[in-house]
């Protein structure tokens, strides 16, 4: 699948897919990488070293700092795939140096799929 590069880099990993938007501030614990938002579809799951797939960000702009914190604490996802990356997530992944591609039909990706994200060429491939 061809999309748009938000932040460069190439990685392979297992997908974890959220059908709902993610608000990082108050939504994911920057120390553990575990989703803490109550009643979120991914509540209690860990995004560390996964390919995190969700439609778009939501909530506070401080979310950018949380994405950066995840990386600095060594618990960040390997890459992020969005339907539409808005500025909170774009800012976070660029500051953190996490590969990110958007304009992808995320309905085609399921949790557990092995995915190659080549952000430099703006492509996402299922293995």
């Amino acid at each position, binding site marked *: 699948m061809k999309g748009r590069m938000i*932040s460069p880099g190439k990685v392979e990993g297992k997908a974890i897919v959220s059908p709902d938007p993610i608000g990082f501030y108050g939504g994911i614990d920057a120390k553990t990488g575990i989703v803490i938002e109550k009643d979120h579809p991914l509540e209690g799951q860990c995004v560390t070293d996964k390919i995190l797939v969700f439609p778009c960000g939501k909530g506070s*702009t401080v979310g*950018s*700092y949380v994405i950066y914190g995840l990386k*600095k604490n060594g618990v960040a996802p390997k890459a992020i795939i969005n339907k539409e990356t808005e500025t909170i997530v774009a800012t976070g992944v*660029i500051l953190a140096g996490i590969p990110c591609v958007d304009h992808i039909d995320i309905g085609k990706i399921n949790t557990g799929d092995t995915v190659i994200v080549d952000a430099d060429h703006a492509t996402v491939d299922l293995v």
Partner: protein
Amino acid sequence: MYLTQEEEKILDGEKGDVLERMFRLLTRLGDIYGADKMIPIGSVQVAGVSYKSIGDPGTEFLEDMVSKGAKVKVLTYLNPAGMDLENWEKIGFPKDFAQNQLRIMNAFKSMGIVVTSTCTPYLAGNLPRFREHIAWSESSAVSFSNSVIGARTNREGGPSALAAAICGRTPNYGLHLWKNRQPTIKIKVDSKLEFSSDFGALGYFVGKQIKNKIPYFTGITDANTDQLKALGAAMAASGAVALYHVEGLTPEADLVEKKGLESINVTKKDLDETYKKLSSGKDPDVVILGCPHASLREISTLADKLKGKHLKKPIWICTSRVMKEAADRMGFTEIIEKAGGYIVADTCMVVSPIEQMGYKTTGVNSGKAANYLPGFCKQDVVFANIDKLIEGQL
């Protein structure tokens, strides 16, 4: 987006890691919003300063930037902090909060940012000119600089404003372009506006209706900068209005195209209903004025009204350090403190932990404060003009 040779070198990492990251952020945001190029900016105002807003993730990010040698290239001011940076102990801000807030301020200062924390930088030494490109964050400051001064800025997030300061540039899109500064709706005001709170009520009412449109006001025959500040702040809070024009009063009003616009009438009844709607409580524990930060004129007005009086319950007036120092020198501070009030500098009610200080109901004369206090500070609100608020505290 078109980049100069020098800008390409920044993206290739030739000017260091911090500059590359920050510039990549700006070019990416520019691509997302369809910017054609980067433009130099005259000044920056960075939001995301209060420890209450940015917490540990933001604090650690800023300290990390400092350790990598980040420095700003243009005059950069800060949004209000979470407490008065000098008198926090006396006013009763919690100590652990204060320690974290001071870490944040040190990080900003190390980057060369002026640690004047205010939502009114234009009253405190950061004054852009007409048509100057700037990158400011706080919504009322963005509205004032775009509308009353005629400078040009989008509403920046904390990190994008910081990136603009470090790179001295911002992507050219949105309100930097003349074609995007044209009004999209006409507002006919059919009511006398007397107090600042009347302008706040008008702003709240209009912002709710028009969301992020650009209004062209008629029927406002006179307003000083304090009143325009109140109008813009409320519209930016209840809607997302970043630019407005007022016939006869703001600099771009005569220059923009205003033919064929949809029109809304605002009457005294609308404003009376807005006062009622924004008042969720009664008998305030505390009255907080100065949202946005009070001008010296507003502080002097309060001092006049409090002279020789004794307050049963406190009144705060929030302002910038610069205005506070002028108020000290003029004796306004002494008058207000003698009556039982406080002039609080560097911070504001919305970003300070007032709910932790035991207050449940807050009286305000600001449409913006009335909009945010219930959510951010769990306060019941009394929204009224300054005279009614003072009367209630005596």
